[in-house]
């Protein structure tokens, strides 16, 4: 485990050294390859003056909102699908159509319906998160049904008890797994949507931050934004979700 960490550090070190060499060589304009100092300096400045933290917080909150909605709507869809086989088939059908559509592809349509602004972006984010979540939760519920249905029947468990103690409590690991996948999908959709469509609001996220850096030709700022995105992504996916996952695995095995 220790050697693995060293590998990563060395790799990063070499990458940074290589980058700086590229800068020094002057092969590319500083507008494409800014020096490590300017990137580092800009990154620090932008963190201190609050621009990056604001964008980061806004982005995380937006995805989180999307996550809550997705879990809620998934729950409803799974519930509907569990009623009759015909309804289940319908839900499956809807999922199979909607799942392959990238969020950005439907954005122009969404703008027509929701106008420009937070609602449209939230819709796109929810769309990108909802379908993988439904798929994961449905699979989990099916697995639980196959395993525990006979116990439920043998012991005459009331519908309420079955739903709460077997399905609700039992799906928690599935929800966490689904949330992890959904989170990365939503994160990417959100940033891309803001970048491609340059949607503006009073507050805005990392996608818009990158867009602004681009139009003002602030390469160091652009890279700072990318670094912020990477750090966020790593933190949330590795630290938060993996810890959550591990904790759940322990108690739900």
């Amino acid at each position: 485990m220790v050697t693995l960490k060293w590998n990563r550090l060395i790799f990063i070190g070499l990458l940074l050294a290589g980058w700086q060499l590229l800068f020094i060589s002057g092969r590319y304009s500083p507008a494409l390859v800014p020096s490590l100092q300017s990137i580092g300096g800009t990154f620090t400045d932008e963190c201190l003056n609050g621009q990056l933290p604001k964008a980061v917080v806004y982005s995380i909150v937006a995805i989180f909102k999307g996550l809550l909605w997705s879990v809620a709507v998934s729950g409803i869809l799974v519930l509907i699908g569990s009623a009759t086989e015909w309804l289940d088939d319908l839900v499956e059908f809807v999922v199979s159509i909607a799942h392959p559509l990238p969020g950005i592809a439907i954005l122009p349509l969404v703008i027509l319906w929701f106008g420009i602004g937070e609602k449209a972006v939230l819709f796109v984010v929810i769309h990108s998160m909802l379908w993988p979540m439904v798929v994961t939760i449905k699979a989990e519920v099916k697995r639980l049904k196959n395993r525990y249905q006979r116990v439920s029947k043998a012991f005459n468990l009331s519908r309420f008890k079955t739903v709460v103690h077997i399905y609700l409590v039992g799906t928690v690991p599935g929800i966490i797994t689904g949330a992890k996948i959904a989170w990365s999908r939503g994160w990417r959709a959100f940033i891309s949507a803001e970048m491609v469509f340059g949607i503006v609001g009073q507050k805005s996220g990392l996608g818009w931050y990158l867009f602004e850096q681009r139009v003002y030709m602030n390469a160091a700022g652009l890279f700072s934004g990318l670094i912020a995105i990477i750090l966020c992504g790593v933190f949330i996916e590795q630290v938060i979700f993996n810890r959550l996952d591990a904790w759940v695995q322990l108690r739900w095995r």
Partner: protein
Amino acid sequence: MKMKKLVAVMVMVALMLMAVGCTEKVAEPQKKVVIAEQFGLAYAPLQIMKENGYLDKALPGYEIEWVKLGNTAAIREAILADALDVGFLGIPPFLIGYDNGMEWGIFTGLSSAPLGLVSNNPAIQTLEDIGRTDRIALPQPGSIQHILLSMAAEKTFGQADYFDKQLVTMKHPDGMNALLAGGDISLHYTSPPFLFEELKEEELSLVVDGNQCFGGDFTFIVGMTTKDFKEDQVAYDALVKAVEEAVQFMNENPDETVELLSNYYDYDKDVLKNYVYEQNIRYTTDVSGVETFVEFMINNDLLKESIEVDDVLW
């Protein structure tokens, strides 16, 4: 064991850097000029230049390649990637590029045209009538439309970034549709032909025009080339001359011009003629307004360093 891993990592990084470096321009058998063309009546001389083949005739040993790029940011990036030689854009985006170390300069003007802020809300007649929730569509921050709006804001409110939180980035056609649809967008800062189309509509009105914002006349679109391109004296001179010829042709041959342009712009020929010749668009190779833009942008932290006009006007 650790050594082996170290070597493997180094080899990987070296390979990656080599891959990056290998975008070196391979010595091409034939010389090439890559020009970005754009859509809009202000760029009409480009279409004339292309149709009449002025550049091709002047540079027989060269391959002339026309490319379509989405917006000014794309033009800048293409220049940085050594994939573009010649482009046409507004003065402010050019200045931002220069300010960030891009090695390019203005070799000609292209046109001077009316620009304006159009509103779909009859209650909005002047800048002061614009409320905080009224959204303004324009091509992108840093565009000439944004700068003109900021100039007007400075004159009216003393604050150049007064409207910055109400902007929505939209390409001209999308902005026009949004304005006509009357949804979230109340205002659209735009240029010909969209400006003309919008002002034809009864419910849309002009709030302020470009010259008012600027405080005078200015060149809307200028042509720029990279420093490298300028080194090729033959090609550079041919380019300058080709643009002059196109402008001259347009000014002297209105009917043929309209004929040629109708291949690109889907309007009735009468409408097209009216737009090109009777709505105050001037096609000229003169350049004016650079100093004022520089001064404004420096004062408002849009440029880091002041720029001498002589450095950029070739």
